[in-house]
């Protein structure tokens, strides 16, 4: 057993320890409150980003886009035309022919018709 002064010192130390524990608890509570508030802010930003009226540029990260094929199919054989241009140039449509069809009296090789 210690002296009376020792017991008073011990109670004092216990009191200080309890006070420190209360301060720590308050600090922890404050940090949690700040974290919750920040979470709310970020959630609001995320909701705004997916608002239907907002235009969103489509993702271009191929790594996140599902692929339909395990590997892209090989392109058909690339052909260079007589003027050196690629046959896979940007497509054009409704262009006039080099010459209009001419009447023929030879035996045709094929029929063009609906299919």
């Amino acid at each position: 057993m210690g002296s009376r002064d020792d017991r008073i010192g011990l109670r004092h130390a216990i009191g200080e320890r309890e006070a420190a524990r209360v301060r720590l608890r308050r600090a922890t509570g404050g940090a949690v409150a700040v974290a919750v508030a920040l979470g709310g802010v970020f959630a609001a930003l995320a909701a705004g980003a997916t608002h239907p009226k907002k235009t969103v540029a489509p993702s271009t990260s191929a790594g996140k886009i599902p692929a339909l094929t395990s590997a892209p199919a090989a392109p058909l054989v690339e052909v260079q035309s007589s003027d050196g241009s690629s046959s896979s140039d940007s497509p054009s449509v409704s262009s006039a022919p080099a010459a209009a069809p001419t009447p023929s009296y030879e035996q045709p090789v094929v029929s063009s018709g609906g299919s």
Partner: protein
Amino acid sequence: MRTMTFAALGTTAVVAVSEERALGEACALLTDQLQRLDRTCSRFRPDSELQQANARAGTTVVVSPLLAELVEVALAAAETTGGCVDPTLGGPLRAAGYDRTFSLVRERDSWAFAERRVPPEQWRQVELDAGRLTLRVPRGVELDLGATAKAWASDHAARTIAAQTGCGVLVSLGGDIAVAGGSAWPIRIAEDHTEPPDGRGPIVSIESGGLATSSTTVRRWRTDVGEAHHVLDPSTGRPAESCWRTASVAAATCLDANVAATAAIVLSHAAAAWLEDRQLPARLVGAGGKVEVVGGWPADQVAA
């Protein structure tokens, strides 16, 4: 000149070469390319790349260079024709009864026709990045590349075979004809591409480019509201009610010719002026059989 005919893509494929030695190689090249095309953009194969993209409508997916090019071509056709040739009509076509290969559609006794309108210029909502090879089909939309893919394939196959064999080539896929290599090719113009070359109809010759025919008289099927055909009017989602039953067009490519021929059916009374403006020679057959030629297409020969 040698010719080989075989079934492909639910229709008839014909390859003709100016030199007999090239026929075997030409057939092999065409067969290979058609198999790739079928795997890529068949509307009737659930495992085709196109159907997988359709199944994931609303999602951006990575596609092969071939599908990217075919979609790009189809969107360009829509742009050039003011939307008359629209690749987003897969849904309305299915609702109208063309929901399986045509040989099966034709066998059916009837079909409960369902009209399905599409929003104006729906095709503009298709998101294609040809550089990154990504495609996003709009939610609720089904792409159908039938109006452009075969003609594009005819062009590509003819050029490829001519380059590989060094001789003159004609490729016909269901009457969508492309020629390459410099020879002149006499072609019978008919309502139905399966009519024999020595059958009825005028004969014209082309040395380059393409010639294609669209018709409402061939691919028809029974529905509970009458017969339907496969050339849909994008403004109604229904088979086009045209003053022309058949349109044949010559152009710089088979693709150009086929797009213009299909647009002519949809444009109806406005077709002749539209074709003239673009200097596209064409032969138009009215619903009653009267023929009109525009853009320098030769008048039909009078039988002796």
